[in-house]
Structures are given as structure tokens and as C-alpha cells.
């Protein structure tokens, strides 16, 4: 049976309203197309898809972020704070012990002029909401990894490919190995590149992908073959960032060292420093705050900055009680050209009740 912890839910909603959040609602059935375009076909394995004879494919909402962002982009208040509560639905193909339905209470903050302050506000508020429960916090910053990729001394095509796969760690690694010359060029590609006119073999055109598109890609492959490999030094720096697992102040000092060799991460590192200051002003003990360089890369959300998870300290078997982060890029994708800085977090009141022994 699903735990429906009404008491916790109401307490959290009230708390978030007291902090200026407006209560918003989202339909349980969401148009599938938006979510599919955002997350790709993979989401079909994680969300329930159903269909309506008139509206086409619909999805039982796997999260609130997308509908809340869409609603905000249509309204456009700045800054704006929202809270919501309700069930989310997650299809489970591999593990029958994981819940397929659970409630979430969220707090989202759009706009504002100080992202560090906004990050700190959300993190602190979510932590306060869980007060009384011993928690372990894990944090990260996808923005630093993205800045590091953008700063590599290599082609724009390679950087785009890496950025596109930031949230797919295995593919990201395979690309790095290839761009760094660690894995050899596939034999068929080498053969293709050795031909004077590979397009001569491109006969029997069929389908929507045109001859011109094939030709453009061959040019791109040629350019890539000419580009020197990403240097071992830069690969090491990326590996260091990905492998970071220290307290936040320690990480900050390591990142400042890395920035000497990779100045492109300067502004992302300064942003992290401002965030730590803001967290400190909000009363967070940043000296003991954990930071992981790869945190948030495999979650459902397309976080692209600060990310955090709060775990029950004495229940390592449970998923995080709360998660959140910054998703500026998502607002750009859903905002049809416009974008707004956005950061938010969700709490699972059911887990909270379980940890507190109320379930």
C-alpha cells in the first residue's frame, strides 16, 4: 500500500507558503510529447505512457518540474516562488521493490538576480523542512563540469558532443577516450576517411536523411580526424573534477588549483564560492558539507548547476528524502527562446514519515 502522509504534506506546503510560495497544481496526465522530446525515449522505461483517442500519447506525470516550468514561462513573474504537492508515478522494469507511485512536495524559485543566494535559499529551506531528522547532505555542481568541457582546447563539435552526453556517463567516457586518442578509430571509419570520394559509394538514396546530410557528416568526420587529440593533461583535469569527493571548502581549493590550468572554469568556481558564502550566511555548516564531482549526472532532471540530495543518516538503504538543483537550461528548452534562472527541490513526505516512524 502506498503511504499517504497527509500530515507531513500539509506541514511542508504551509512552510513553503510561509516563505512566499504560491501553491500551484499540475495535471496528472501530461502530454507525452514534451517529456519525450526532453528526456528522450528512455523515459518510456521510467514513466507510464497511456493514450487518449483525441490527445494522443499521455504520460502519468513522472515529476512536477516540467509542468511547473511551463506554467511559469507563460506567466513570467520575476522572481516567483511556487509550491506543489501530489503523487508522481515511476514505472519499474527491473526492481519490483521500488515504489511506482509516491508523493512529492516541492519548492521552486524562478528568476531573481543572485543565483548563489537563490541556491542557498532553496537548499536551506528544504533542509529546515526536514529538521529533526538526522540527515547526510551530498552536493555537486554540474556547471563546473560543463564549464570544464567548454574550456577544453579542442573542436566545438567535440565539446558539443560531450555536453550532449553529460548526463550519460558511459557515453561521455567513451567520447572522452576517443577524443583523447585512447581508443582507436574504428576500422570502417578509417577506411571511409581514406577514400578520395566516399560519397561515390552513397548510392540508392532512401528516406528523409538526405545525401547532403551524409556529406556534411563526412566533412565533420574529416575535420575531427585532423584535430589533435585532447591532451592527457586536460583529460586528467576532467578526471580529477569527476572524481572529487571531499568537503566543499576542500573541493573549492582543489578547483582553484585546477582553474590555473583550465581558466574556463573560473567563473563557475567563483559561483560555487559565492554559493558557499550564501549557504554560510543562511547558517549551513559548509565546512562539513560533502561535495561530489559527479553528483546529479544520472538523475531524471536536466540539472546544469548546483545539485543536492539529502539522505537519512542512519538509513543508507533508502533513496534520498529530498533532491534538488538548478535547471536554467530546462527553462530555455521549454521557454521557446526565453529562459529564466531556476532552482528548486522536492521532498518525499512518505519517506520522511517512514524515517520518523510514522508510517
Amino acid at each position: 500500500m502506498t503511504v499517504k502522509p497527509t500530515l507531513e504534506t500539509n506541514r511542508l506546503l504551509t512552510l513553503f507558503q510561509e516563505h512566499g510560495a504560491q501553491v500551484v497544481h499540475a495535471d496528472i496526465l501530461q502530454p507525452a510529447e514534451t517529456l519525450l522530446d526532453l528526456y528522450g525515449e528512455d523515459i518510456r522505461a521510467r514513466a507510464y505512457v497511456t493514450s487518449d483517442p483525441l490527445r494522443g500519447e499521455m504520460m502519468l506525470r513522472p515529476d512536477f518540474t516540467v509542468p511547473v516550468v511551463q506554467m511559469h514561462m507563460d506567466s513570467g513573474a520575476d522572481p516567483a516562488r511556487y509550491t506543489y504537492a501530489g503523487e508522481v508515478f515511476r514505472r519499474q522494469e527491473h526492481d519490483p521493490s521500488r515504489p511506482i507511485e509516491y508523493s512529492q512536495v516541492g519548492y521552486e524559485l524562478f528568476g531573481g538576480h543572485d543565483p548563489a543566494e537563490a541556491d542557498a535559499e532553496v537548499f536551506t529551506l528544504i533542509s529546515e523542512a526536514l529538521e529533526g531528522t538526522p540527515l547526510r547532505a551530498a552536493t555537486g555542481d554540474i556547471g563546473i563540469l560543463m564549464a570544464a568541457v567548454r574550456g577544453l582546447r579542442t573542436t566545438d563539435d567535440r565539446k558539443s558532443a560531450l555536453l550532449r552526453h553529460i548526463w550519460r556517463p558511459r557515453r561521455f567516457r567513451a567520447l572522452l577516450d576517443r577524443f583523447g586518442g585512447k581508443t582507436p578509430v574504428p576500422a570502417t571509419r578509417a577506411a571511409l576517411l581514406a577514400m578520395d570520394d566516399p560519397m561515390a559509394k552513397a548510392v540508392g538514396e532512401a528516406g528523409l536523411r538526405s545525401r547532403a546530410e551524409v556529406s556534411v557528416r563526412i566533412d565533420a568526420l574529416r575535420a575531427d580526424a585532423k584535430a589533435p587529440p585532447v591532451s592527457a593533461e586536460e583529460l586528467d583535469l576532467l578526471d580529477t573534477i569527476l572524481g572529487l569527493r571531499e568537503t566543499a571548502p576542500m573541493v573549492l581549493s582543489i578547483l582553484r588549483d585546477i582553474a590555473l590550468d583550465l581558466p574556463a572554469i573560473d567563473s563557475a568556481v567563483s559561483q560555487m564560492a559565492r554559493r558557499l558564502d550564501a549557504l554560510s550566511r543562511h547558517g549551513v555548516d559548509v565546512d562539513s558539507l560533502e561535495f561530489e564531482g559527479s553528483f546529479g549526472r544520472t538523475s531524471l532532471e536536466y540539472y546544469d548547476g548546483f545539485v543536492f540530495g539529502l539522505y537519512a543518516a542512519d538509513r543508507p538503504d533508502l533513496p534520498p528524502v529530498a533532491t534538488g538543483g538548478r535547471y536554467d537550461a530546462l527553462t530555455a528548452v521549454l521557454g521557446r527562446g526565453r529562459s529564466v534562472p531556476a532552482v528548486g527541490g522536492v521532498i518525499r513526505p512518505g519517506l520522511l514519515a517512514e524515517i520518523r516512524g510514522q508510517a
Partner: protein
Amino acid sequence: MTIKLGVPSKGRLMEKTFDWFAARGLTLRKSGQDREYSGVVEGIDGVELVLLSAGEIPRELAAGRLHLGVTGSDLVREKVAIWEQRLGEVALMGFGGADLIIAVPQFWVDVDTLDDLDAAAAAFRSRHGFRLRIATKYHRLVRDFLRDNGVADYQLVDSQGATEGSVKNETAEAIADITSTGETLRANGLKILSDGLIHASQATLFKSRMAEWSDDDRAVMARLEAMID
């Protein structure tokens, strides 16, 4: 009590299954008229023959309504989530072999690997405004495979037949389908990605872990296993 053995109800798969059991001293045959889908097993007591569509056998095994069943290993992987926990492989039968593969138009001289497919999909999406379409009826297997290999910016479109024609008909840019010789693919101007083998399928005798197995059933199963071993 008897063990229920599910076998494909028609075609080559049925004939080959009958042959396979016959070679092991077990005669399977349809009872009564040819159009009747019930059958008998001779050579062992306590086994009941159920004839049904190969596509339904995975579901019946997963539900525990069949104790044993013969079907393609591709169908089990496609239709039964966490199949290893619910079903067990008793014997690979060595026929009905076919590969589930990803194929693209031959004139895509720039695409030979999944890495190429991923790059082509990204470029296709930004140019055409929608995700590159892959026609298939093996949704779960293809999706898991592409996720594990980090391919993005594609969409699966359902195709229950004549999938090889999807590209020419412009309902898809690539396909994922079963092939044994590759002849139909070539005839339709398609080629297989060099690392695009999703699953090498063959007819397999499965047992259900979800069915009720009485002590008598287990004894029958032990005798059966001794015969087919």
C-alpha cells in the same frame, strides 16, 4: 497433476519443435483434427501439450499458467520484465535462429557503428526538428540496448510487419528487426550496424518459476530433463 508444456501452434517452429522432442524419444502431436489446438505427449507420463501462438507463450510462462514452453529467446526478453527471475532456460534448441539487429540505409556511408548512429541522430534532430525514427516491434529490447550504449535523440515507432520497408516509405530513418540471412534487408537497401547486434535469438525451452510445482510435477520434470539432456 500434470506439467503443461506450451508449444507454437503452427508453422515451421511447431514442426521443428516436434522434431526436436522426437529425436529425444518424445512424440508430440496434435490430437484430433488438424485445426484443433490440443495435443498429446507420448513417451512420458504427466506432461500435457498446449498449442498456442509463440508470441503468447512468454506471457503464459510469466503468469505461471504454463510450466514449460518453447518460444524464441527474443520474445521472452521483449515481453517478460526481469525474465531471469521468473523463467529459466532449460535447453537451447538450436533452430529458429535469428538476430535482432539495427539497420540503416546502405547509402549512409558515414554510419557503421552506434557511435555514428548517435551522431547522425543528433544532426538529424537539429535539421529536421524531430528525433530520428527507428521502426521496430521490439520496443523494450531496442530501448534498453540504445540506452546502455548511450544513443540519444532517437524515437521508436511501432512497426508490426514489413519493417524493412519503413525507410523507403519514409515512416522511419532506421529499423531494428529480426533477420536470419539479411537478404530482405539488402533487398530494401539496408545494412546492419557493425555493433548493432541486440540479441541472437533461437528457439528455447523455458520453464516457469512462477508456476506451481508439486512434488509429482518435479519428479516428472526430472524424468523429462533426463530424456532431453
